[in-house]
């Protein structure tokens, strides 16, 4: 099997906004095998507090030897990660999970919210390379322009057109990405690749169900192991009672899951 536990060197550190950081890690084993939608488990710090690894989507690879993670500082683990420096080493496990299913005949559409945009960058780059005839549609949103702009730039560098939405209206549509999608004429062979907060994914599921569109979502859960051993990372599923986000996912066909609507 092709998973690795490695000490990877940090070769680039980017502070994208006050609380968003991107790390570029050197790992030929992981970078050369990763698929969009897969993730890595990262150990923050050497000590036992925090104890467990933290899951992060692989948000880009390059040269078959570098890959990136993009994260927001939300707690102790991410805050420690945000204090690493270039040249230091991080223990990483990966690539893990299944990844997005891609078909060049589909009209692929990337729909991301907040840090959920991370894996979609990788997917966008992949699609541009694998399906050059049929570049994906990109619709992404975040709280403010400060969070969103650096990511828009990355998609634009791939030559993709990007639709945006922000909670405060500071960039693009003032509101939700789903509002933007509703204004776009989507073909029946559209395939949505979604990653973002739960309410957004639940809404996307309904949106796609109504229109008969294919919808893939990447689920975030609490994970201890990331490799199918702890059984901690469940999501309610229609096949069996629960699916395991780390090994059956994190990407699921939205139809297979049981959605809790608030």
């Amino acid at each position, binding site marked *: *099997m*092709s*998973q*690795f*536990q490695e000490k990877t060197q940090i070769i680039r550190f980017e502070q994208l906004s006050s609380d968003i950081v991107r790390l570029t890690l050197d790992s030929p084993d992981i970078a050369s095998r990763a698929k969009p939608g897969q993730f890595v488990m990262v*150990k923050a710090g050497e000590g*036992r*507090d*925090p*104890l*467990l*690894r933290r899951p992060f989507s692989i948000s880009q690879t390059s040269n078959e030897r570098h890959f990136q993670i993009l994260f927001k500082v939300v707690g102790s683990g991410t805050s420690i990660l945000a204090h690493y420096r270039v040249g230091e080493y991080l*223990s990483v*496990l990966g690539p893990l999970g299944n990844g997005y299913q891609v078909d060049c005949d589909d009209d692929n559409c990337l729909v991301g919210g907040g840090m959920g945009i991370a894996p979609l960058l990788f997917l966008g780059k992949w699609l541009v390379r694998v399906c050059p005839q049929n570049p994906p549609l990109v619709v992404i949103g975040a709280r403010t322009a400060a969070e969103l702009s650096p990511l828009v730039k990355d998609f634009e560098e791939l030559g993709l057109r990007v639709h945006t939405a922000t909670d405060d209206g500071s960039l693009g549509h003032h509101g939700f990405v789903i509002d933007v999608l509703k204004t776009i004429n989507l073909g029946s062979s559209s395939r949505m690749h979604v990653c973002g907060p739960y309410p957004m994914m639940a809404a996307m599921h309904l949106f796609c169900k109504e229109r008969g569109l294919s919808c893939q979502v990447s689920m975030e*859960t*609490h*994970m*201890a*192991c990331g*490799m*199918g*051993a*702890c*059984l*901690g*990372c*469940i*999501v*309610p599923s229609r096949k*069996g*009672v*629960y699916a395991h986000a780390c*090994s059956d996912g994190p990407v699921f066909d939205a139809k297979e899951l049981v959605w809790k609507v608030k």
Partner: protein
Amino acid sequence: MESEISGADLSVSIGGLRLKNPVMTASGTFGYAKEFEPYVNLHRLGAVVVKGISLEPRAGNPPPRIVETSCGMLNAIGLENVGVDRFISEKMESLQAVTVPVVVNILGDTVNEYREIAERLVDVEGVAAIEVNISCPNVKKGGVAFGTVPEMAAAVTAAVKKVSSVPVIVKLSPNVTDVTNIARAVEDGGADAVSLINTLIGMAVDLRSRRPALANVIGGLSGPAIKPVALRMVYQVAQTVSIPVIGIGGIETAEDVLEFMLAGATAVQIGTANFVNPRASEEAVEGLARYVTEQKLISIREMIGALVLS
């Protein structure tokens, strides 16, 4: 490295079961072993213990099932498993391919359920031993855990022992006033060995939502945080029973293994550490081999119970 340490005698015996070294993996933390194949040379481990198996399949508890605590984690997996029949038909094959002893951890709601599972495991190829998890509630006794009442613990032990053809290890709960009482009872009930500790019962609260952090409200605490409690109980039990003791709780490294052995453990199990470092078990074996070589021990068995008291 390999050649330098190959001479070290790390073997130990657990109730007739010979292990090439004392490092086992703990139930529920190592999947069905194959999950760890990318990281670990499974053949180098002393034994592998699989996730707890019940008579019928169980879906387990709703999410969230895990939450991190200071130097530890709480889990309320709720004993999700495929049930003994599907375990035998679906999981044993890949386990048989692993050439280390496979220990099957079992659990039940009644004494009869434990016996029934043990019966179905008789003559299943590749089952080297049974580990009986007695931390489960006895539904016939108002939900009191088997592992908290000496008579109930002894009864489960005797029932499983009666039908089993392989060594029976009884896994003790730490959530008791006097663990030596329970250890003595299961020894009298016929256990070939005891393993301890299972998780401490704990709880976490999410202040933002003002809810319990686990859907099940309470869960089992594991990891380095519980190591001092585990070491103490292993020490107490090793002085009480004459069957082998398997130490569990917060073990990460060869140093931890050696500390448990000094306190009286014949072997150990590594649990939560597998999540943090999937190679933890194999690295512990390597560390033990180095220790035996460096300290010029004839065998790792010299360490068992060798704690120096002044």
